């Protein structure tokens, strides 16, 4: 090679050599910047890439009845969601998923569009409570649908769908609730009604989370760690599932027999206020809410004329009718205005302040000469018109309130409403008018302005049973926070009335007669070998004080009441059954009979009575009774 060439080649090779060394140095520095100087930033990005926090929803606490029977538990529901984070073609995913789930693609797209602005890692739920077929179909197409997630979520299951209003229902927390309670976060499922709401804090449990590694298409590769969800506290209620079933069977027979589909019943232990049974009908299926109620079902519930969402037992206000008479009697006796021997002559009607008032016995010529005991047993209206007129509305108000009427019961359920027992002061305050003595006459038989909730009537029955202690109805007996059952102290009574037991006895005699003598209006409640005390009531529907001629129209029929307690000595059960448009108190007494038969059979360890039917109940469809 010529010298000149060799020299040139040598020089130019050296240039290239330095050029290459220079480039490699730049590369090395670049890698140093990425890997050392900016390492932290990229490490975080890599973790965000492949680590995902998956929330684990805590199951809510299981709810038992007083004997340990499961009333509310949890089942596994499967939700199907789209996680868009690594989706390449969202429309293709929507099309395929809709096809696989047999849903309308437009509907699925609309759902996705609604959540489009949320972060892409947040799942968009397409089906909340998927059928097994849907879960299987998605699993089969897992490879084509890597961005579709199936999640198992514990969901409420209400066994036998008993006592819907008592349990209430759960639903996604709303914005106002999140704002009010810092422990809640958006997306939480909380109780919205019933004990699910009042004991939400106990029932809710603590959500867990697991950290998982996912690959580039979002598939879970392995789990890094897991904070297990803590199940909510288990609750033991005061409810007796057998009593509860007896109530609902009785109502069902009334419904099947064409009498009524609506009503309420509250059964208490008069010694402490434990609620043994609690019903409001018509009801809804709380299970339908557990996995998210859709608009259609919701609309049909709120537009239903029968108002199935209303808890009649604590929110329904009704005229108590003749069941109010014991309060009037007690006022008369305690205030010394009457004695048990006070006698009134009932010709079937009477005139007060220029107006004619009728007794329900008017057509049969009235009760004749009648004393307090018989007036209660036979529910004489003229007797109570007369004594109410003698007592005056304020003293009636005082003693009715002492027994628990017209006041809140304090039950541990949300949204209780207050009833009303009128007084001169009440009228002055709300209507700015003077009370007219003539208005007291109707109050004497539990009509007029008197309105009560069924739960306050149950307290009233308990007060008559226990001699004046206004127990606070409550549903929670024991709580298990994971460390065993602990008794919950019962709430203190609302008040204790200073009642002379001597004064109560004649009233109780009358109530005993209602159930246990041939002339009693509630003899249908009689239980052989047991001293059951009670009182019927048939009250005109509030707002329809004038009896319409056509009583075959169900909505115009009287409401039927029966308040009761048993046994006479040391009573252990007290309560009320109210049949909306149930015509007579006697029909409510028939339902009560089944409840008491069940109660005593269980107490004695005998087999429970057979489920009643319209035939065995023999409801009375005749009209006249009051």
């Amino acid at each position: 090679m010529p010298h000149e060439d060799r020299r040139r080649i040598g020089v130019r090779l050296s240039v290239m050599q330095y050029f290459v060394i220079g480039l490699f140095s730049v590369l090395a520095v670049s890698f140093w910047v990425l890997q050392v100087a900016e390492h932290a930033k990229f490490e975080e990005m890599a973790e965000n890439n492949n680590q995902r926090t998956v929330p684990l929803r805590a199951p809510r606490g299981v709810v038992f009845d007083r004997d340990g029977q499961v009333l509310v538990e949890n089942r596994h529901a499967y939700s199907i969601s789209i996680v868009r984070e690594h989706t390449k073609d969202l429309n293709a995913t929507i099309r395929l998923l809709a096809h696989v789930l047999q849903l309308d693609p437009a509907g699925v797209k609309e759902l996705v569009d609604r959540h489009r602005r949320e972060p892409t890692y947040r799942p968009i739920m397409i089906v909340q409570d998927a059928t097994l077929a849907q879960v299987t179909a998605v699993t089969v197409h897992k490879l084509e649908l890597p961005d579709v997630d199936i999640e198992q979520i514990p969901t409420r299951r209400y066994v036998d769908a008993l006592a819907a209003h008592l349990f209430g229902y759960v639903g996604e927390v709303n914005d106002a609730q999140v704002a009010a309670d810092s422990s809640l976060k958006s997306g939480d499922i909380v109780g919205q009604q019933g004990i699910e709401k009042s004991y939400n804090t106990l029932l809710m449990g603590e959500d867990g989370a697991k950290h998982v590694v996912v690959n580039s298409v979002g598939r879970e590769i392995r789990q890094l760690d897991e904070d297990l969800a803590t199940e909510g506290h288990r609750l033991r209620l005061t409810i007796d599932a057998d009593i509860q079933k007896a109530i609902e069977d009785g109502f069902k027979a009334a419904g099947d027999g064409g009498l009524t589909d609506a009503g309420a019943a509250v059964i208490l232990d008069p010694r402490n206020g434990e609620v043994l049974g609690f019903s409001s009908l018509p009801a809804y299926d709380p299970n339908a809410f557990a996995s998210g109620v859709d608009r259609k079902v919701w609309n049909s519930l709120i537009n239903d004329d029968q108002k199935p969402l209303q808890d009649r037992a604590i929110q329904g206000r009704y005229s108590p009718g003749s069941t109010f008479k014991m309060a009037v009697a007690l006022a008369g006796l305690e205030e010394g205005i009457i004695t048990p021997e006070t006698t009134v002559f009932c010709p079937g009607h009477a005139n007060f302040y220029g107006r004619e008032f009728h007794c329900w016995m008017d057509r049969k010529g009235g009760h004749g000469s009648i004393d307090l005991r018989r007036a209660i047993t036979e529910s004489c209206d003229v007797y109570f018109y007369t004594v109410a007129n003698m007592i005056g509305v304020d003293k009636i108000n005082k003693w009715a309130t002492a027994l628990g009427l017209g006041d809140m019961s304090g039950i541990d359920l949300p949204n209780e409403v207050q009833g009303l027992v009128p007084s001169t002061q009440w009228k002055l305050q709300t209507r700015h008018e003077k009370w007219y003595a003539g208005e007291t006459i109707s109050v004497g038989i539990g009509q007029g302005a008197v309105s009560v909730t069924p739960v306050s009537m149950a307290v009233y029955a308990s007060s008559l049973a226990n001699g004046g202690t206004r127990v606070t109805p409550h549903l929670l007996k024991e709580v298990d926070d994971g460390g065993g059952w602990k008794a919950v102290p019962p709430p203190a009574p609302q008040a204790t009335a200073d009642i002379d037991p001597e004064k109560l006895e004649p009233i109780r005699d009358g109530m005993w007669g209602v159930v246990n003598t041939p002339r009693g209006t509630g003899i249908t409640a009689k239980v052989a070998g047991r001293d059951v005390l009670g009182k019927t009531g048939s009250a005109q529907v509030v707002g329809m004080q004038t009896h319409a001629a056509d009583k075959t129209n169900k909505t115009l029929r009287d409401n039927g009441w029966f308040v009761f307690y048993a046994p006479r000595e040391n009573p252990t059960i007290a309560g009320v059954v109210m049949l909306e448009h149930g015509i007579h108190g006697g029909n409510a007494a028939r339902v009560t009979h089944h409840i008491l038969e069940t109660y005593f059979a269980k107490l004695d360890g005998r087999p429970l009575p057979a489920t009643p039917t319209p035939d065995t109940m023999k409801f009375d469809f005749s009209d006249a009774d009051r």
Partner: protein
Amino acid sequence: MFERRLYHHVDWALVAAIFALCALGVVYIYSATAARTNSHLYVTQLYAIVIGVGVMLVTLSVDYRAFTDKSHLVYCGLLLVLLYVLFLGKVEMGARRWIPLRVFNLQPSEFAKVGVALVLAKFFGENRGVPAWSDLAIAGLLTIVPLGLIAREPDLGTAVTLVPVFLAVAYLAGMRMRILGILFIGFVLLAPVVWKFGLKDYQKSRISTFLDPSQDAKGAGYQQIQARITVGSGGLTGKGFKHGTQGQLQFLPVAHNDFIFSVLAEEQGFAGVLVALGLYLFVILRSLEAARLAKDRPGSYLVLGVLASFTFQVLYNITMSAGLAPVKGLTLPLMSYGGSSMIATLAGFGLILNVRMRRFTN
């Protein structure tokens, strides 16, 4: 043909560095494909290395002058094969690049680099003194023809690797710096025209997303962002063999191929990167040494022709694997998965060793 004494002149250090890089490649192909079930790509790569060593022995044993002398035949054969591929080759992923053989698919464009290096070595080797304009034009034509054929496949990445071959050989042959400057200015002026008429949409999008990866974070920019995350998250010492997350969880596409260096950077960190960079730099500098030691000009030119495309590809691929260059289908020679590339590269190094080994023979 192979004289025994020549054995002593083989550059064993260069051989060792080459096979160290091959081994590193096999190891990281294994790691990058470990997540896939039943993947034996690293075994296939081992076979390619064995074949490559066989071919390398041939290109080493036969005097390189025999190759350069017959390079016009090699070149013509190459053009025929490229034409065959263009019209009758196997289509995969939208490109016609392969000739299906029974065991594997042959990618002739990989061998074009060696072919062009040979023919340019011969062409410039026969001329003395500073190349004239006409020489450069002819040499350019010799480069442009296979380049065009390969670009038509389309395989722009491989086609472009022929440009450094021409530039490096012409430069070494004494091309005036002025011409180099003119070529550079011409390129700058032509770039917008090429952008408008010469590039396909996917090629344009690759370049534009390189300038701003976030404009298409899910599409073309995705790979670039993921590459940076992969490399950056490796840190100083790496996440450990097979413990990378980006590569193992397939956030990086074709990790065993175009992004093998990213996997290494993730799992062995900056320390591993320095080792690999050092090996490549050693190979290149050692080869430049061979060019310097060459007995004649065709030898020097041949070494540099082979080395030019190799160096260009190494630099580009490593830059790309750190997310610092637009994503191109350019493999990392010696490490990336790919039989044709491995065989062609080893054949090329056979020639480089050949030139050095025969520096004393006549």
